[in-house]
């Protein structure tokens, strides 16, 4: 553990020192700042690049081996990794970790229980994202917890998938929940299936399942786009209890309007840790909170510095603001 932290710190220091030592690594402001649009008169030019083309593409103009403008994000990743490892260690040591109540997640047991009492299946919709979409991964973690409950209560679950790679993963997730609950015989391999990757074809298919099966509980967890309301409204019309969750801000208003509970943004990522109550998982949430406080503080400090910088051009305030900005963007100006 300590060795890993030391390694991260060393890598950071090494990267930072190399980057700043590298010749012309940090471009002067006038080179990186966007030039005003300019017309190129040479009509014979086969191709002309962007009118305000300042973009230095990789492998072209910028040949330095380390990308210095990306250093701030490397620092954030390293700090977040270190914080996660530190908090996991703390959690393993028995330190109490507080997590606020999330109403949508508290209702999971009730929703599955209600379906069981009504003799209706649970419908779990993992969204239309693929496996490289983090919201889908978070959704699969939640599916695991929901499937645990479903197996425990001996209820049916239906999981229609919109992505061919999500499908076997979801199938394996549900299957493992049944196996670990000691009821592998209850798992129906036709309960998790691939529907279509087409957005509204998927919505049509899911709506059809809702109308035919009349599920008692519907979970809409993952990555959604405009089809979210089509599914949520149909779910609402069949009288199911609906628990939604997405990090897609444009879909949140629709889900809030049509569902009983909605997990907003990061609550989706926190859900798996929340439901498992595993201290190791909860420890990672603490790390996010620390960084969130840091970013909120940075935004406030940025506003404080930017205001006088805008009012008094060329002053110390502007220099201070530019320096502050450089810390986050890796480039001055």
């Amino acid at each position, binding site marked *: 553990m300590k060795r890993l932290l030391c390694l991260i710190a060393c890598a950071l220091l090494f990267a930072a020192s190399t980057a700043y030592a590298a010749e012309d690594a940090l471009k002067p402001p006038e080179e990186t700042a966007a030039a005003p649009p300019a017309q190129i008169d040479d009509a014979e030019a086969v191709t002309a690049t962007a009118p305000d083309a300042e973009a230095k593409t990789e492998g072209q103009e910028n040949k330095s081996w380390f990308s210095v403008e990306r250093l701030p994000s490397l620092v954030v990743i390293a700090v977040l990794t270190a914080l996660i490892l530190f908090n996991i260690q703390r959690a393993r040591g028995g330190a109490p970790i507080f997590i606020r109540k999330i109403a949508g997640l508290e209702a999971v047991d009730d929703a599955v229980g209600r379906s069981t009492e009504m003799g209706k299946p649970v419908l779990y919709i993992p969204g239309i994202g693929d496996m490289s979409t983090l919201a889908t991964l978070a959704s699969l973690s939640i599916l695991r917890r929901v499937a645990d409950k479903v197996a425990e209560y001996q209820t049916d679950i239906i999981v229609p998938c919109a992505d061919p790679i999500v499908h076997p993963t979801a199938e394996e997730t549900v299957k493992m929940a049944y196996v670990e609950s000691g009821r592998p015989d209850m798992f129906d391999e036709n309960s998790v299936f*691939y529907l279509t990757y087409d957005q509204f074809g998927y919505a049509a298919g899911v709506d059809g399942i809702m109308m035919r099966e009349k599920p008692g509980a519907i979970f809409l967890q993952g990555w959604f786009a405009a089809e979210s309301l089509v599914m949520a409204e149909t779910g609402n019309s069949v009288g199911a209890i609906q628990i939604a969750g997405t990090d897609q801000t444009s879909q949140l208003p629709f889900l809030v309007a*049509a569902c009983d509970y909605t997990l907003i*943004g990061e609550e989706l990522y926190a859900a798996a840790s929340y439901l498992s109550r595993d201290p190791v998982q909860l420890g990672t949430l603490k790390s996010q909170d620390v960084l969130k406080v840091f970013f909120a503080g940075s935004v406030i400090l940025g506003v404080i510095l930017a205001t006088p910088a805008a009012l008094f051009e060329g002053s110390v305030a502007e220099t201070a603001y530019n320096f502050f900005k450089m810390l986050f963007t890796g480039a001055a100006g």
Partner: protein
Amino acid sequence: MKQRIPLTISFIAGIFIILTFYFPNSPLGDIEQHTLVWFAIVVGISMVVGVESLVRINVVKIMKQKQGWAYSLALILALLLSLVTGIMGQVKYGSPFHLQSPFMYVYTHMIVPLQSTMFAILSFFIASAAYRAFRVRNLAATMLLLSAVLVMLGRVPVGEKIWSQFPVISEWIMNVPQVGAKRGIMIGSFLGAAATSIRIILGIERSYIS
């Protein structure tokens, strides 16, 4: 062992992709370029996995004449129709997407109207959800209602005719409070996403491999 191999692959691939972001040129950048091409190939092949699942489930449904088997039959026939017309287009015109290809006939006269219909349903659902959800229950709900009405009026010509300031107010709502709230949620979401990625790379989060 069943878990160790995928966890090791996730760790190596994750660290490698992170490194290529900070060391974008040769040799890491070149290797990354190859892995991206492989990724595209793997995604293409994964479609076959999906089609296999789709065909298996629906064929079983037809064979056993389960409830709704006729829909499954329609699905299998539609799948075959797309496949056959696509192959015909490829053979005759070099691409199924060539404008004269028979696949394009199926596309224009079947897929386009069906898909458009599905999306059009959204406007009806938006209206019924708005009727139900936009109620003056409390201060927050009232603010939501007012901003929705102002944006709706500001985004259409009739709003401009009623009062020329509606578009200005709408633009302000979209550019200031909307963006501010969204940024707050986005920062939280991206931190959650970054933490999830790190947990996956380090093997702490492993529910996806069960």
